[in-house]
């Protein structure tokens, strides 16, 4: 799949934002007054910024409001609904924290649940797709949630909590890649079943339907070199998990927060780039462009 910058920004920023907001909502970052304002504003900025950047991916962003209508069937719609609902639910909590209204933690706890739900919906946009076997796996929502949690904990300056989460994320990533690498083969799809020609022998591409390019090939058939991918995975592990874990464990709060946060975000983006670039769509079979059996 094509790693579109808007979607990478969307998923990483909003994931981080909702992770941070969830911690705020749960009251794990105890602030009052203006510090609270800046904390909440930061969380909102990440989440809303992410959501906004997702609209750059749309052909018709002016119609984006329509996306709230199909929550019964569509994870993308659910994600929109959940995101907006969560941001609304958390607003009283933010006001209360900022202005010291003392409205308790009710909205915050509810909102934290909303944050988790939103991140889950985001992940499910991908994980629901049987057409992308690498994505169609529980590790995808788990990874998205883990990123949100880890990111939130790092930004919250939670020290060893952040270290633990980051190490957990690292393990999850490694596991996800391992199962992901064989996902296409396990999906049991090949050119023979894609064409119904299995009885005849081994089909291979003779000629592409068009010598000119097309949307499908640009959007869904993206190849990334194996060695390039391996390097990026290592980088991802270091940036998203290793460095932040170390920083949170040994550095004072502020430097740990800044260094660890930036490193984690860069790592998240690298992971997300790989998430798309390494994902092979079943349609690639028709074009002879999958690593699975052709």
């Amino acid at each position: 799949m094509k790693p579109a910058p808007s979607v990478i920004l969307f998923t990483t920023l909003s994931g981080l934002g909702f992770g941070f907001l969830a911690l705020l909502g749960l009251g794990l970052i105890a602030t009052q007054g203006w510090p609270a304002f800046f904390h909440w504003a930061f969380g909102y900025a990440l989440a809303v910024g992410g959501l906004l950047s997702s609209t750059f991916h749309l052909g018709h962003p002016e119609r984006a409001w329509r996306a709230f209508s199909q929550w019964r069937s569509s994870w993308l719609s659910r994600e929109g609904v959940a995101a907006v609902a969560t941001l609304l639910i958390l607003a009283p909590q933010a006001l209360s924290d900022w202005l010291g209204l003392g409205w308790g933690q009710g909205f915050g706890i509810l909102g934290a649940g909303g944050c988790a739900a939103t991140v889950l919906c985001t992940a499910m946009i991908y994980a629901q797709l049987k057409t992308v076997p690498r994505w169609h796996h529980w590790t995808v929502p788990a990874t998205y949630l883990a990123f949100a949690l880890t990111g939130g904990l790092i930004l919250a300056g939670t020290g060893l909590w952040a270290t633990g989460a980051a190490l957990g994320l690292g393990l999850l990533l490694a596991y996800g890649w391992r199962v992901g690498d064989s996902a296409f083969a396990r999906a049991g799809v090949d050119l023979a079943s894609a064409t119904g020609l299995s009885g005849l022998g081994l089909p291979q591409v003779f000629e592409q339907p068009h010598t000119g390019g097309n949307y499908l090939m640009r959007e869904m058939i993206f190849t990334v070199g194996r060695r390039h991918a391996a390097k990026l995975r290592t980088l991802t592990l270091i940036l998203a998990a290793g460095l932040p874990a170390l920083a949170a464990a040994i550095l004072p709060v502020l430097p740990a927060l800044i260094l660890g946060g930036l490193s984690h975000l860069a790592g998240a983006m690298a992971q997300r780039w790989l998430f798309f670039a390494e994902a092979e769509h079943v349609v690639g079979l028709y074009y002879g462009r999958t690593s699975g059996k052709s």
Partner: protein
Amino acid sequence: MTCLPAHTDKRLGLVIDLDTCVGCQACVTACKGWNDQGYGAALSDQDPYGADPSGTFLNRVHSYQVTPHDGGTAKIINFPRSCLHCEDAPCVTVCPTGASYKRSEDGIVLVNEDACIGCGLCAWACPYGAREMDQEAQVMKKCTLCVDRIYNENLPEEDREPACVRTCPTGARHFGDFADPDSTVSKLTRDRGGVPLLPQLGTKPVNRYLPPRPKDRPEEASLLAPLLDIKATGFAGWLDRMLGKLD
């Protein structure tokens, strides 16, 4: 809307005969031509005379070479690919706006372009590559089964079929109602063992592909028996025997 209808009265779709398709691309441009001026936005082309031309097509014909497992004679199979109008169409359920829908009356999967935000998720959800985002209109385009032909009262009755079917020179494309067991498409599917594509993905495609008939079979019947031993009889003997047959 993006919930699929529990039941459709008809199940309209195509049967594509891989035994007969010569890969001429006629259906590709007939489709392009009709839909360029038909339902919804035109099918645009980018850089049409340039270095990297590309455009929206709702039907593309692949060509595969198949080598039999026993090492026999290789074959070329031409393979038209377009929307299969799945009963359990994942492209419909993923749509966040309800633009993508399956018609309850005939099962045609359509895009309401006015409601399409161009997110592309439906194209991701489709295993068959049936959907292409038009780069000019920025809405998702797909095979409509020529919904603006098949019921069109401005067309003669005989022309109320998809443009690709009407144009197919070898008659390799058939259109009809799979819900009707007596329709041509149902019969062809039964008689020729029509197959769905990627059934393991659970999309329940309506369209069926008729597999190529066995080809290049080793000659089974006994060869022709010689008239006589020409070596022994010489040409004269052959001629006598031969012309004796005239009577």
